[in-house]
């Protein structure tokens, strides 16, 4: 995470990849406790990944990372359950069983489809980066924007997506 915050793309990707099984497991145990189908765990894991990304400057680099991640997940899980009308009591994730190593990793909703209702500039940036797999520099030249503008659009787009995710679930 520290390297990720410093802009090391590879380290950041590895961190998010390594965190994902942990997020799935916690999400699944939270869902099971609330009596929800555990298939929704992938939706929550994706929500949490986006939240980790957009809120990463709220983590203090000298503090342990795991409590922060757990708190983000708990927040998203409670939010998810509340929106689905479940008043499950989620206090601790004391005992969790390791997730199976192989996961399909496909959520029940499509973030890219949701992005269709974003303003056109943000939609273009999200599409260029998420679907076409461009980095900020390539996106900037493809859309004839400055890199700064791409970054701003991406952040607004991600924030908008996070809002829509909260609305859609």
């Amino acid at each position: 995470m520290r390297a990720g915050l410093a802009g090391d793309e590879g380290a950041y990707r590895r961190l998010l990849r390594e965190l994902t099984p942990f997020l799935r497991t916690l999400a699944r145990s939270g869902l099971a406790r609330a009596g929800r189908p555990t298939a929704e765990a992938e939706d929550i894991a994706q929500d949490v990944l986006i939240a980790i990304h957009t809120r990463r400057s709220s983590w203090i680099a000298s503090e342990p990372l795991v409590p922060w991640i757990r708190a983000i997940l708990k927040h998203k899980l409670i939010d998810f359950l509340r929106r689905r009308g479940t008043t499950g009591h989620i206090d601790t994730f004391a005992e969790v069983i390791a997730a199976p190593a192989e996961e399909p990793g496909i959520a029940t909703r499509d973030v890219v489809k949701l992005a269709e209702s974003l303003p056109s500039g943000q939609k273009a940036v999200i599409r260029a980066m998420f679907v076409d797999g461009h980095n900020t520099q390539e996106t900037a030249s493809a859309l004839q924007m400055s890199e700064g503008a791409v970054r701003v659009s991406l952040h607004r787009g991600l924030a908008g997506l996070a809002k829509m995710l909260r609305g859609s679930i």
Partner: protein
Amino acid sequence: MKTDDLITALSRDAKRTGPSVQGRIAMAVALGIASAFALMMASLGMRPDVTAATRNMLFDLKIVLVATLAVAAVALVRAVARPEAALPKVVLLVPALILLFGIGHEVATQLPAALPGRLVGDKWAVCLVAIPLLGALPLAAILTAMSAAAPRDATLAGALSGLAAGAIAATFYGLHCTDDSPLFVATWYSLAIGMLAAAGAGIGRRVLAW
């Protein structure tokens, strides 16, 4: 969408954008202090007898009370910005005890008949208008800093931002205000700071949710 694709896309945006939330809060507080002080000096000015007033125990008590409330509120804002942190509510004890001492002192040293007049004071209406006005900019600055934070409770985060902004504004308003009775402070300052906290809660509920 595959989670792995999402991760790849997010990691392309790995480069950090701007300072940490804690850094942003510190800057917002500094900006809030500077703006509240400048606005107070430009519009109301120090009370004319400010040098003599510093030898008045009730004036000192008033300033120390609102200043410690500001420090406590900023500590709470810094904690509420972090999803994993517990709120250090105990910091509020310091201003609370100062206020209790002040009220006790007032009741013990003043004639009972004088207490209602001291509570109402001279310029309660100015206090109720000036503190929210002086605190508006600090509140905006703190809420802006909090927009990248991850508070568990957006309403609470907004309310605490308002409390911090209100206490900062009250500290500088206190240098102008000639009502020094702890009864006055407990009533009107609290009400004015409460208005900012309520505004912060209402705004926070809408803009700080994530």
